[in-house]
């Protein structure tokens, strides 16, 4: 049985939903961050799947761009997380609710 496009898309959707739910449900900043990465990779998966099935390389190029952005975002995000932790001694996002450090 050859893999269909819909399989990849379904997996991508499941991963994305897990990410969304994780962002909303989790309180730990690190966990939320990982969930965001999960969403990005779910999208990457669908890009690659489309690229492969339509024989179009531009989908893969998009994936590279997304990965670059994700890397930059991870650097900035982790920096913010460390700064928050130094101030609050906590990684609970609900503690950081006054829009300033």
């Amino acid at each position, binding site marked *: 049985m050859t893999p269909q496009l819909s399989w990849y898309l379904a997996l991508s959707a499941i991963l994305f939903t897990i990410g*969304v739910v994780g*962002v*909303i*449900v989790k*309180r730990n900043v690190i966990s*939320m961050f990982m969930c965001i990465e999960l969403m990005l990779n779910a999208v990457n998966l669908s890009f690659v799947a489309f690229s492969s099935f339509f024989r179009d390389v531009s989908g893969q190029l998009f994936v590279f761009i997304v990965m670059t952005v994700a890397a930059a975002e991870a650097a900035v995000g982790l920096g913010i997380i460390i700064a928050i932790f130094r101030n609050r001694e906590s990684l609970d*996002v*609900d503690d*950081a*609710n*006054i*829009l300033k450090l």
Partner: protein
Amino acid sequence: MFPNNYLCLIIFAPLVGAAINWFVGRRLRNETFIGVVACGAVAVSAVVAFAIAFNIGGGAPAGALTGGEHPTVIGQQLWTWIEVGKFRADFGLAMDRLSGIYVCFITLVALLIHIFATGYMHGDKGFYRFFAYLNLFMFAMLTLVLADNFLLMFVGWEGVGLCSYLLIGFYTKRKAAGNAAKKAFIANRVGDWGVVLGIMLVFFLTGSISFFDKGHDVHSALSIIGSMTADSFTWGALLAGGVTSAAILLFIGATGKSAQIPLFVWLPDAMAGPTPVSALIHAATMVTAGVYMVVRCSAIFLHAPTAMYIVAIIGAATALFAATIGLAQNDIKKVLAYSTISQLGYMFLACGVGAFVAAIFHVMTHAFFKALLFLGSGSVIHGMHHEQDMRRMGGLKKYMPITFFTMMAGWLAICGIVPFAGFFSKDEILWRTWSTTAAGIPGGAARFLWAVGVLTALLTAIYMTRLMVMTFWGSERFREVPAEAHGTEAHAHSSSDEIHAYASHGGHGDEGELLHPLETEDDEEHHAGPITPHESPWSMTVPLIVLAILSTVGGLVGIPYALSSAVGLKVDNYFEETLSPVIAAVPKPSTAEAGTSTTSAAPELLSHSPQPIDGAPPLTVSKNEGPELGAEPIPNPQEITEERLFTLISLAIAIAGIATGWLIFQKRPLLELPRILENKYYVDEIYDAVIIEPIKVGSREGLWKLFDIGVIDGIVNGLGRSVTEIGGLVRNIQVGFVRSYAAFILLGALAVIGYFIVKFIPFAR
């Protein structure tokens, strides 16, 4: 129009004088310097004015006032002020016979009053300010008179209003003076509204605002109107937007400036200003600006019989009304103020019945004798140490002989005793009223107006006699200790110590001797005990003497033919002969106009007919056939007899008035007159209740409390409040929890996705 480049000197000399006094005089604080600059500036004006008017020094073919039947208009075009499309206003001056007469008597009287004021204002802290204002007034007044178009005349018109305001409120420390100044300014604004609308309407009707034909497509608005068909005599014409509406709008302005019913209320209050100001502005010159405008626009008024009728009625009503009030006033200046209003009423009566020449004649003689009376009263007030109440005067002829004799001349002149100036002009007005041929005035109405005029003449004689008797004859009431301390309104402008020093050892011993030996410095300083009057210094008495001479002989320039022939001289009325060419001829009744084309109507305006610029005699213009207004041919004997009869009547009336006044007030100078007269018919109170209070209440309750607080503040506050409330709703979303933001982002994304699903995917519907 004959060019003359010195014409602008007449208006600019006082302006320069005002500037020097304002910028230099205020630093020098030297009364001699300020007085010389101010009087010198006016003297320059006067000399230039007379030189141009009588063509002294040659140059022109004739002066503005000479040249017999061929009037010369002297003009100077300074620059084009406004030019927008068809609208063109020049800063141009023009002296024809009307403005020539005005300029001559204005500069002459003003020069005398300036000299008088140097004595009267001596020792005042605002000496430089006073003369700067006075010179500025001269600039504005002369601009008004010499302007060659409506708009520039209006500039002068507003300028004199401003200077009047500044000078009425000259004693800035007196609340009453400030209020009077505001009252004058506001009452004049009401009138100016009419002038502005009138000028607009004239431009709308004619496409021009110039008084004269000046070549280069500048046509005279007046001659254009002169060539139109006259309006018929209907009340509807007032609102029809034609010539009648223009005339009545201009007349509204005249009622403001010249203190006629219903806008006369400011003039009596304007007496709060220094007396020379009252004499110059509120008697001799500014208040006659309304008459000037009406006569200048005689072409407009003659085409508006309804407006003429109204002018005559307002004039007669004002004359009688003010005379009755003047009868009962106790303030010497108030009597003269009401007298001025009354005499201005005469002038408008004359305008209304078409006797424009007589009106201007009365303006001139009135300027002489009323300036004299005001300056005389100023001298009395000065000599009485700023006492204005006639009840505290009496017997002054012993102390102030020069003032007394000069005021005698003014008194006889205003009463109309032959041969004083007022006799001829007043008699002329009454005769013209009786025999008016002006369209629209029914014969019966003319008789009635004449009766009002005669009654006013009688009252005039009575109240002026009362003034003279109360002031100069009778017991010396100023010796009685006054019931209430009367230093309250006095001493506004000068330290009387200085006046006393000046008067007693100022180099004129005979006047010093007039001072009563009882007078002490304590009396001066505390102003409590009886005071002793003294004669005024020469700077005040000399103008009085000159004006007295003018009041005595000034009327001789206008002796009517009927009177001169009675004594065998048989000269025509010189004044009328001079002035009548500039007065528009009576247009033919509109019914007769039907067949005639405009060509026959064109030359009716004699002075405005085209004149070659090189000064050659103007084109011959056909004299109007009728005997109405042109330089009259010798009238028929019956008319002469009638006119002589009426002269005798007015003389008899004047003598009767003087006799009545003498008999009543010689015995009982303090006779109580009806309160309603003393309180001026409660006109001020009525205006307060009917106009001012409703405006105040309406402004406070309606405009302020309802509109400003409710609507304006309501909009502003409502905006702020609604922003706050919407913000209060929105802030509930902003809880600060990152996860709730994430949830909102998710909801938003879902909403967008849901929208596109519903919209673009057919099967989802």
